[in-house]
């Protein structure tokens, strides 16, 4: 679901094909029939963005028909835990949970805690910090030793199992059909197959991708799948799991060692102005004092990271230079930054292998932001639209950007391709795979490592004689990587990531060796062990055929500790025996007194299955012998999330930010905590209960084609790829083609309140209308690879989308919107501006449209995400930029939307 794996991840799809050849059933749940569906046993259509209703229906089916893997659920999940009696469900509050504050559109999560488990204090969510994501693999701080009340019979009305039953009781096959448009019989067939292929003897896996993440409820889509998989016993076991197909090569790597504003390496949170008071306060914000599990050791991970950053300068006396780290005080994510560019709060920007002028939602806003910078650095393989927007953006035709007057100075640096440099990729399976350089980069192309290393070196030189204390973090940086010629040695960087014992100078073998006393360094604690024994473990290439019986353990290296299946303690029963021979993974070897098996056990090797920790134990020592979820604060899989999410402890069906339909479950229409931005440059199409939804009657969704790569920088310039998909197309069903008079291969344009986009029409049976709430709804699909540069060009599909974000992870809802489609080409130049104004007028769109996000209370105020105060001028002054350029005509015009 939410993945078109055959098209977007064809290399990984070979394993699906192999599983199918061995008898596995493959089901593709997707708005349209794709190349993935072509090889599936069943294609299940649904309305884009209705996945929680769908999966909630599966949860309901499992619970109503008692299909749970009971032994697993009772032992390994929090099903039996009791929740605070103040907790109120969406069934009680018409789509809201207890603790909602309409004025800030946030939850106080106090009432979501386990009974007697809560530490009390302020649980107000600070969603501007995207703190949900900050918990990473660790989950939030929860005080959880032996105090949680539970009922192993699952009968107590406030136990998680009963809450779940009640929460999903109305998610019936009929409601699934009404909400998702999926025929009831087909839905039940899927439920049958899924539950039959799960349990003691069999397991099922879920694959998702950007079709789940790019929604205002994206994190909760995945949570719903988590609930299904935990109830069926499909987590921590071979053939089970929830697989995230990542958006690019090594995107997993760039969250592990993040390019995100709110994370440090290894999912340690970036300190905020509150949590970052000092090191002790910061560490307390990561793990509660008496919390279970491996996050309790965050002090060792953090101090080792600081030692890696600042070397000998980091000492116990100065909190290991903790004060050198920046503090965040709000959302500094990519969309906030784009809006801040327009608003004059950002004046310089680096783009490394990213093309937001095409690839990000609301392309016009992105480009207007880029056009309002002092300087922009673009490093890419080709001159992407983000480097050339000043001369070929669509806004030139409308007069919004004037090339001669565009203030932004663009520096383009040609980048080396992956074949032209050493390094590692981290794939979706957490597998670090080393690759060697095949050829030298040509011309001025240089590796990312080269660019950043020399940039850092030069900045350090420039500041060498500074006496300003704010330059100390740069001056003291341990920027001493090994260099070959002028190219930094990538293997040396990986060694530094692995970490060293500073008392001996030796490489450490893993994060269990890390200490919080400054005697170890480590660039990313979860990667620690990649150079275990002094060997680049990521460069190992022994295929599975040479090691029968194990899980290809000598093919590259998986974090953490080369474990191929996370939480694989759950593959054995509480007594330590595999649930079944067919699904054996790791088990307790009583004779040797240790865990062993086909995989590296994700558990303390010598901890007996029946181990019960002594009273007062904390951290790792507090984990029972049957607590498989060793990173969770209670050692259990979370059916109910007592903390960590901004939008509720249980996934709840909310309509997308833009939907033609009212929420059939609750008065609350959309995610009550989503991020919305009511601005003239970011209008929203109306959704119920707002009027005029008929102006944009269709559901728009986008995805990729196999033949192109995301924003096209890597494919539209290559003739062999460009010729395979030479033009932007829009796929419509024959039914919609008749309704709108669209001709196969003729022109049409798709319209939202943001933009109109030309495309050639493909009329195809692969698109199918659905019946939702007693009426027919059409879905429209477009690939988003085109822009004005390259061998093949086209309009920018992402211009059609506005910016509304998931509150947990600040990811945009660009997989679903409402739209209109018309035969023929869109108007050009100023006519286009008038055309869109007319659409907005007919739809009654104002800056307030879509911002009244609490619809459960009729009198709730409109809400828009808070904006930071104006800082740019002050920052400019501090940098001595006395001659601040006045606003130019290229600044965006205010639309009278």
């Amino acid at each position, binding site marked *: 679901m939410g993945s078109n794996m055959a098209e977007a991840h064809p290399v990984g799809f070979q394993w699906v*094909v192999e599983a199918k050849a061995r008898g596995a059933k493959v089901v593709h749940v997707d708005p349209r029939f794709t*190349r993935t569906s072509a090889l599936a046993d*069943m294609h299940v259509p649904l309305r884009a963005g209705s996945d929680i209703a769908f999966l909630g229906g599966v949860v309901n089916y499992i619970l109503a028909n008692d299909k749970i893997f009971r032994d697993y659920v009772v032992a390994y999940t929090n099903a039996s835990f009791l929740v605070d009696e103040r907790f109120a469900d969406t069934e009680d509050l018409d789509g809201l949970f207890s603790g909602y504050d309409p004025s800030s559109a946030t939850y106080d999560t106090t009432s979501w805690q386990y009974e007697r488990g809560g530490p009390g204090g302020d649980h107000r969510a600070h969603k501007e910090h995207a703190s949900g994501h900050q918990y990473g693999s660790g989950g939030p701080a929860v005080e959880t030793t032996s105090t949680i009340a539970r009922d192993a019979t699952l009968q107590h009305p406030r136990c998680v199992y009963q809450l779940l039953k009640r929460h999903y009781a109305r998610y019936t096959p009929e409601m699934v059909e009404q909400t998702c448009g999926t025929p009831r019989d087909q839905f039940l067939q899927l439920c049958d197959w899924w539950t039959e292929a799960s349990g003691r003897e069999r397991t099922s896996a879920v694959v998702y991708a950007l079709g789940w993440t790019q929604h205002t409820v994206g994190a909760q889509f995945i949570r719903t799948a988590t609930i299904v998989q935990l109830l069926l016993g499909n987590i921590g076991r071979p053939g089970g799991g929830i697989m995230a197909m990542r958006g690019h090569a090594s995107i997993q790597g760039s969250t592990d060692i993040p390019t995100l504003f709110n994370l440090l390496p290894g999912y340690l949170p970036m300190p905020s102005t509150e949590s970052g008071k000092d090191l002790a306060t910061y560490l307390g914000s990561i793990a509660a004092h008496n919390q279970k599990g491996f996050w309790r050791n965050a002090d060792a991970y953090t101090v080792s990271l600081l030692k890696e950053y600042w070397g000998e300068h980091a000492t116990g006396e100065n909190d290991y230079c903790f004060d050198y780290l920046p503090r965040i005080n709000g959302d500094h994510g990519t969309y906030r930054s784009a809006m801040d560019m327009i608003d004059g709060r950002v004046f310089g920007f680096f783009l490394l292998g990213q093309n937001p002028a095409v690839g990000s939602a609301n392309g016009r806003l992105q480009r207007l932001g880029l056009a309002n910078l002092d300087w922009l650095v673009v490093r890419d393989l080709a001159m992407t639209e983000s480097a050339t927007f000043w001369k070929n953006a669509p806004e030139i035709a409308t007069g919004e950007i004037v090339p001669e007057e565009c203030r932004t100075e663009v520096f383009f640096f040609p980048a080396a391709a992956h074949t032209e440099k050493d390094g590692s990729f981290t794939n979706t399976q957490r597998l670090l795979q080393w690759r060697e350089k095949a050829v030298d980069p040509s011309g001025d192309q240089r590796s990312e490592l080269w660019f950043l290393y020399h940039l850092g070196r030069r900045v350090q030189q420039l500041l060498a004689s500074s006496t300003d204390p704010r330059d100390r973090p740069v001056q003291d940086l341990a920027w001493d990587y090994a260099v070959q010629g002028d190219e930094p040695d990538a293997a040396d960087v990986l060694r530094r990531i692995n970490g060293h014992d500073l008392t001996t100078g030796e490489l450490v073998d893993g994060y269990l060796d890390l200490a919080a006393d400054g005697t170890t360094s480590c660039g990313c604690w979860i990667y620690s062990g990649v150079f275990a024994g002094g060997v680049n473990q990521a460069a190992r290439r022994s295929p599975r055929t040479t090691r029968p019986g194990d899980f290809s353990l000598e093919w590259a290296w998986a974090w953490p500790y080369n474990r191929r299946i996370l939480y694989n303690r759950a593959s054995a029963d509480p007594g330590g025996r595999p649930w079944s021979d067919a699904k054996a993974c790791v088990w307790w070897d009583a004779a040797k007194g240790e865990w062993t098996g086909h995989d590296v056990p994700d558990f303390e090797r010598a901890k007996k299955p029946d181990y019960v920790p002594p009273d007062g134990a904390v951290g790792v020592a507090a984990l029972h012998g049957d607590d498989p979820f060793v990173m969770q604060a209670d050692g259990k899989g979370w059916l109910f999330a007592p903390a960590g999410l901004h939008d509720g402890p249980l996934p709840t069906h909310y309509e997308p930010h833009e939907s033609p339909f009212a929420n059939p479950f609750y008065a609350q229409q959309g995610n009550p905590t989503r991020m919305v931005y009511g601005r003239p440059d970011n209008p929203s199409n109306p959704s119920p209960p707002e009027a005029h939804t008929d102006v944009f009657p269709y559901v728009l969704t986008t995805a990729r*084609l*196999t033949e192109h790569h995301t924003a096209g920088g890597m494919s539209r310039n290559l003739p062999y790829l460009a010729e395979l998909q030479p033009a932007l197309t829009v796929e419509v069903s*024959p039914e919609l083609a008749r309704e709108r008079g669209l001709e196969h291969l003729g022109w049409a344009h798709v319209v939202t309140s943001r933009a109109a986009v030309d495309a050639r029409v493909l009329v195809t*049976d692969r698109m*199918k*209308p659905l*019946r939702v709430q007693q009426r027919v709804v059409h879905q429209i699909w477009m690939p988003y690879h085109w822009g004005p540069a390259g061998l093949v060009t086209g309009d920018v599909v992402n211009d059609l989308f506005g910016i509304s974000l998931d509150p947990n992870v600040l990811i945009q809802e660009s997989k679903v919107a409402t739209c209109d489609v018309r035969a023929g080409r869109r108007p050009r130049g100023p006519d286009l501006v008038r055309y869109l104004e007319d659409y907005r007028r007919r739809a009654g769109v104002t800056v307030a449209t879509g911002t009244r996000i609490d619809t459960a209370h009729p009198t709730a105020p409109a809400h828009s995400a808070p904006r930071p105060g104006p800082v740019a001028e002050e920052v400019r002054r501090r940098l001595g930029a006395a001659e601040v350029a006045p606003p130019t005509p290229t600044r965006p015009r205010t639309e009278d939307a």
Partner: protein
Amino acid sequence: MTLGTHPLYGPVDDVATQAGHVGHPPRVGFFTDTSVCIGCKACEVACKEWNAVPEDGFNLLGMSLDNTGMLGADSWRHVAFVEQPRRLGRQDGGVAGLPVGPSSTSYAAGVVAGRLRQAERGGGELGTAPLDPGVPGGGPPPPGGADRMDFRWLMLSDVCKHCTHAGCLDVCPTGALFRTEFGTVVVQDDICNGCGYCVSGCPFGVIDRRPTDGQAHKCTLCYDRLRDGLEPACAKACPTDSIQFGTLDELRDRARGRVAQLHALGATEARLYGDDPDDGVGGCGAFFLLLDEPEVYGLPPDPVVPTRDLGRMWKAAGVAALALAAAAFSVFVEGRR
């Protein structure tokens, strides 16, 4: 039928020996299992990259997701996409119970065919040269017809068949086309004089001349890679093993097993194409598992090498020559009288 020691038709046990290779490796080929093709076109790209085949135009063909059209001088692999309003084996195409009307598959195919007819060479440029597919026309899908009940999407990566009796090779007057030690058929562009006989000699419409150099080009089964012990680029790139490379005997065994497996799974329409040594080209070095009639994929149902009739034609010509000679002789004899 044979002419001297050179068979022109029917099964041949060892094409390489027959071509004069001594101590040669076993005959190799492709088994393309279309039931696991995901239409990613990695084969098309890998082929062009390895063999430096030029791009042939950035034109939207719109035949489902196929913008290559067919094999030609500049397309040595071609992935065909076929959309059909019918069921594939026991697959549930997810149409039942939806508010659908008539299928658009034949409408869309008709629009493409109509546009090709308006092109300069009537679509003959496909796979070889840039093509202007003409102006749109014909309007949206017409109303009427039965509601669609099901859907399936077939994909097939087409390639030169490397026939046992290769029409292109047999008609080549320069020797540019030759049979390799691997039993494959390769054209040498430093010898080809561009006469074009091979183009009409191929019963599959595979080989074509490139407008820029006038010479004939087609799949070499990566002859250079074979000689280095590597598998062809397309098979190497295929993520799902839809394209399988190997010795022909082994591939044929594997293919028969796969057909039996698919039949057992309910896909009774699965059949092999080009695997039969008794067919009109003596069996193909590159053969296919299809899920419908060959015509559906753009393959000829009963390809016959033109040389099949060569013996009969020579006989007829010989008889005619003899008759003429006899007549001339009789005239001469009678003239002497």
